[in-house]
């Protein structure tokens, strides 16, 4: 191989190594930032706080969870199964993939409510005081 070709070859290797290195770094940051665990945590805590602040008489309050639902569906979990509220244990359980979930507790034990998923929104509806329990416990409205 002549000298010119050798030098060109070295430069190409150098450039390829640089491109590979920075691509790996960018990919790593992207994967970390779009991790399903982060979205699970954010969603579970958001819903738990929503339940804590909900007051009897609230007709409907909703939060947009588009990013989370898209990620969960990509991972094979449908919208209805991705969010579960265990009213006995006061827990919000959020599943962003078949293998992972995040649970977070809420302290407000004095209300009864209905929750549903409508489009990209999670809705908390018909909040009543627990002594006026006119809504069947554990009701989930299956709406999409």
């Amino acid at each position, binding site marked *: 191989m002549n*000298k010119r070709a050798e030098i060109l070859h070295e430069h190409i290797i150098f450039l390829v190594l640089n491109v590979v290195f920075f691509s790996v770094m960018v990919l790593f940051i992207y994967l970390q930032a779009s991790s399903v665990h982060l979205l699970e945590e954010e969603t579970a805590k958001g819903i738990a706080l929503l339940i804590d602040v909900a007051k009897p008489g609230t007709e409907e309050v909703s939060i947009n969870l588009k990013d989370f639902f898209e990620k969960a569906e990509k991972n094979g979990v449908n919208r209805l199964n991705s969010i579960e509220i265990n009213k006995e*244990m006061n827990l919000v359980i959020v599943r962003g993939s078949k293998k992972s979930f*995040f649970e977070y507790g809420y302290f407000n034990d004095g209300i009864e409510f209905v929750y549903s998923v409508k489009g990209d929104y999670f809705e908390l509806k018909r909040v009543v005081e627990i002594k006026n329990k006119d809504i069947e416990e554990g009701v989930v409205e299956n709406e999409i």
Partner: protein
Amino acid sequence: MRYKNADETNFLKKKVMNKEITFPRKVKSKSIHLLSNRKADERVLSIYLFIIYIIVGIGIVSGVILFYGSPLDVREREAGVLTDAVIDCLVDGGQLKKNHLDNPNSLNLKEFCKFDFRDNTKKYNGEERYAVKVELYDFDTGELKGALPVAGNKGFLEFCDAEGKDIPKCNKKEVYVLYGPAKFILKINSAVNKVQNIGE
């Protein structure tokens, strides 16, 4: 530039890229030495290059893991929500509900306000991770007139003035309330300590 007699001037020749560069012996010094050892220099440079890659890589990876790996901390916000819930529960239209002062020690805040302070997640398995302290002071004199028994985990309230990552987060609020014609200051201190890492 060409020299007529190459033997007399004793030139050193070196090809770099497609240019033929000639150097008189007079200037044979560091630069000539470097060029003549270019292969070795490249090897040294590539080692340094990889060391720099490794250092930069470790820096970026550890920074990203530290940033995205830390839990989303909502404890302060949660403590604020809890304090507001206690105020809503004890005060009605600016008036303190009567039963709190008649016999404060008999009042169970958790039952009265319908709070469940147990954390039923796998990590805490039913431990109480909240605490609330309610005190009533005279508006004019500032004298303590009464206090409700602390609800939840009392130990958390001790850390309210401390700073740190894994210690309870608190929220303190004072509201002006009436009890009949008398004026009071209701002081509420709430603490929440639910430290939960991602994936737990």
